[in-house]
């Protein structure tokens, strides 16, 4: 068997390696597939579905589908763009996302995706749910208002930090991230350097006394859309 997988991405010939997901192979070829719950250091979660691409006529999550020889993949169709917009819009209306005063604004992957997808306002009515804040820890807090239940922190705690201190409680729309102690975050061993803290794509897990240090104009997504770094990897044609 060849160690090179050939596939077509938006009509362009691309190569991948055995064992790679569609998303990883696309990254190597400089094609950015929008994603949210995926993080390069973690096993794919496959929960947000933002990375949905069309593979040989069917829609599948690019982060959990292994790339295979002869795949014909579409990424930037109007249908997929609208699907992604709808998913991101639902995340916005399902939580309480106040960008104007959020510590993560400008560095937030949810916000950056919305910018990239050119979302001007969500099409769904806002839910304004009641969410909880865990401010029991002296150095870190978890703001449930901004959580999108991507599960990155849960996976990072297990896979990278090797201490399963965070988990999900509840199901469906009531699902929440929670620290595994009756005392909340104060009852678990967690520190600002832990991967589970750093992988949060939104402003849900925040290290205290670090907010608003970067001026507007110098934040990660102020000038370049999310995914620009991946697109820069594209070979010159």
């Amino acid at each position, binding site marked *: 068997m060849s160690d090179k997988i050939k596939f077509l991405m938006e009509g362009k010939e691309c190569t991948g390696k055995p064992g790679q997901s569609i998303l990883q192979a696309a990254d190597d070829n400089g094609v950015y597939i929008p994603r949210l719950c995926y993080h390069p250091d973690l096993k794919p979660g496959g929960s947000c579905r933002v990375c949905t691409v069309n593979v040989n006529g069917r829609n599948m999550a690019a982060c959990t589908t292994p790339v295979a020889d002869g795949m014909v993949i579409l990424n930037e169709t109007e249908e997929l763009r609208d699907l992604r917009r709808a998913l991101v819009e639902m995340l916005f209306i399902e939580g*309480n996302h*106040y960008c*104007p005063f959020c510590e993560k*604004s*400008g560095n937030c992957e949810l916000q950056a995706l919305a910018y990239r997808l050119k979302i*001007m306002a969500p099409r769904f009515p806002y839910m304004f749910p*009641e969410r909880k804040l865990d401010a029991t820890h002296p150095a870190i807090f978890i703001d449930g208002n901004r959580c999108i239940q991507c599960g990155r922190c849960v996976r990072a705690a297990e896979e990278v930090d090797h201490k399963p201190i965070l988990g999900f409680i509840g199901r469906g729309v009531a699902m929440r991230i929670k620290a595994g102690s009756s005392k909340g975050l104060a009852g678990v061993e967690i520190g600002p350097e832990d991967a589970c803290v750093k992988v949060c794509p939104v402003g849900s897990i925040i290290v205290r006394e670090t907010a608003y240090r970067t001026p507007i104009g110098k934040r990660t997504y102020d*000038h370049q859309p999310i995914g620009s770094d991946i697109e820069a990897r594209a070979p010159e044609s």
Partner: protein
Amino acid sequence: MVKAKIATTSLAGCFGCHMSILDIDERILKLAELVEFDKSPINDIKRFSGQCDVGLIEGGCCNHENVEVLRAFRKRCNILVSVGECALMGGLPALRNGIPMTECLKEAYLDGPSVVDGSIPNDPELPLILDKVYPCHEVVKIDYFLPGCPPSADLIWESLVGLLTGREADLPYELIKYD
């Protein structure tokens, strides 16, 4: 040439978006060539003189008066634009949406640390407060949205000129921000 008519209002907002409209600086002279301001806090005209082409709405709906004004704008403006995060999603005033109304009023007017001999306002002249703060597009049909807190003067300018001249607005990545 007949000038387009434009109306603006601030509902449950802070007037920051209106400040951003003024922030177009000297382009306001060019704007004056393109439009005539109808009802707006900028010229202090209180009543619509007739049908307007464009209405700019700042702020969401937190009380009955906001809803009434917004409905009047919908009726009187051919194109209605939500300007800023409060109009789009309620913004800061919507922080009360998760708190029961009684608790909110009690904290503000009865139990607050600086309140002396407090009472909950109940004058018939005061518009009644709504159960929560509503984004404008959940009350009336909104045609366009300009996000931002406030939307930058360049975003407002580009969009407005686009609307008034009938060409698609050129909105670079950096102009669309939610903060």
